[in-house]
């Protein structure tokens, strides 16, 4: 088996386990209110982390590139209560324009 297939097999199998095992083991149980509070706050915390890593993340460095212009444009769209698809299109267009002129 080549390295490519080893990677695909191992990452695939472990990824399925990562997603399935907590759901199976913890599934359907009553959770204390404090834990619910944490789960509630997990969504904004992880989504914020995804926003910054996908906008400013480089190869172990912070980078400022056209994605940042896209995010700025999306922020304006979101503030103006634009639908989610409009925000994504606005971001893509802004990033493409900045990339084309720089």
């Amino acid at each position, binding site marked *: 088996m080549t*390295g*490519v297939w*080893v*990677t*695909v097999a*191992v*990452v*695939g199998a*472990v*990824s399925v386990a*990562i*997603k*399935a095992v*907590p*759901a*199976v083991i*913890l*599934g*359907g*149980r009553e959770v204390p*209110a*404090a834990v*619910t*509070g*944490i*789960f*509630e*706050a*997990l*969504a*904004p*915390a*992880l*989504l*914020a*982390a*995804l*926003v*910054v*890593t*996908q906008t*400013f993340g*480089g190869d*172990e460095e*912070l980078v400022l590139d056209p*994605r940042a212009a*896209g*995010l700025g444009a*999306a922020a304006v769209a*979101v503030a103006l209560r634009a*639908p*989610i*698809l409009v*925000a*994504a299109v606005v*971001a*893509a267009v802004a*990033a493409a324009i900045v*990339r*084309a002129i720089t």
Partner: protein
Amino acid sequence: MLGRYREGIRVSAPFAVAVVAFGVSFGVLARTAGMGAVAPIVFSATTWGGSAQFAAAAILGSGGAVASAIAAALLLNSRYLAMSAAIAPSLTGGALRRALHGVAVVDESWALSARGDGTFDRDKLIGVALTLYPAWLAGTAIGAIGGDAIGDPEALGLDAAFPALFLALMVTQLRSRQHVAAALLGGAIATLLIPFTPAGVPIIAASVAALVGVRGR
């Protein structure tokens, strides 16, 4: 119940467009990285985690060790441990059924099915997954097989679509001061760690910010 599935499919439509495009760019990159055409498609079918797959393909393509490709990908997918644990209390049924709901978790399905009170709409989760999984597979196949005929998705600004989608999703989750605090703290933790840690660590470390919710209600 069918209505909730349909609701999941409806709300995920904007994401499907971006996911197909992202899948195409993954297919092209994987092909360029010497993974062939079949392996990237199998990779998408099993792993179903865009950033993890990108990292693995990039490392293999630049001649990196198989072990580092695996480690980077798994680190990037480790956030799903937290996400799967979070949906667990909202699940019912036997182990197999719960496992299927767990496997349906990706960033988008998880965030779109979050009700904002710590619980999750499991049927909506499945509805979103039923839209985005085929989208991801189709995109990957188009990129991996037809790769050369397609231009650079970056030139179209598609790499900026995902931060925008996640931002829009995040805003819908800000229902209290604590949520705003969690978002600010999570974003700050991730930003601080980006220069010092391998990709994936900043995201999973940001889950610590959810502890602001511990005093909950």
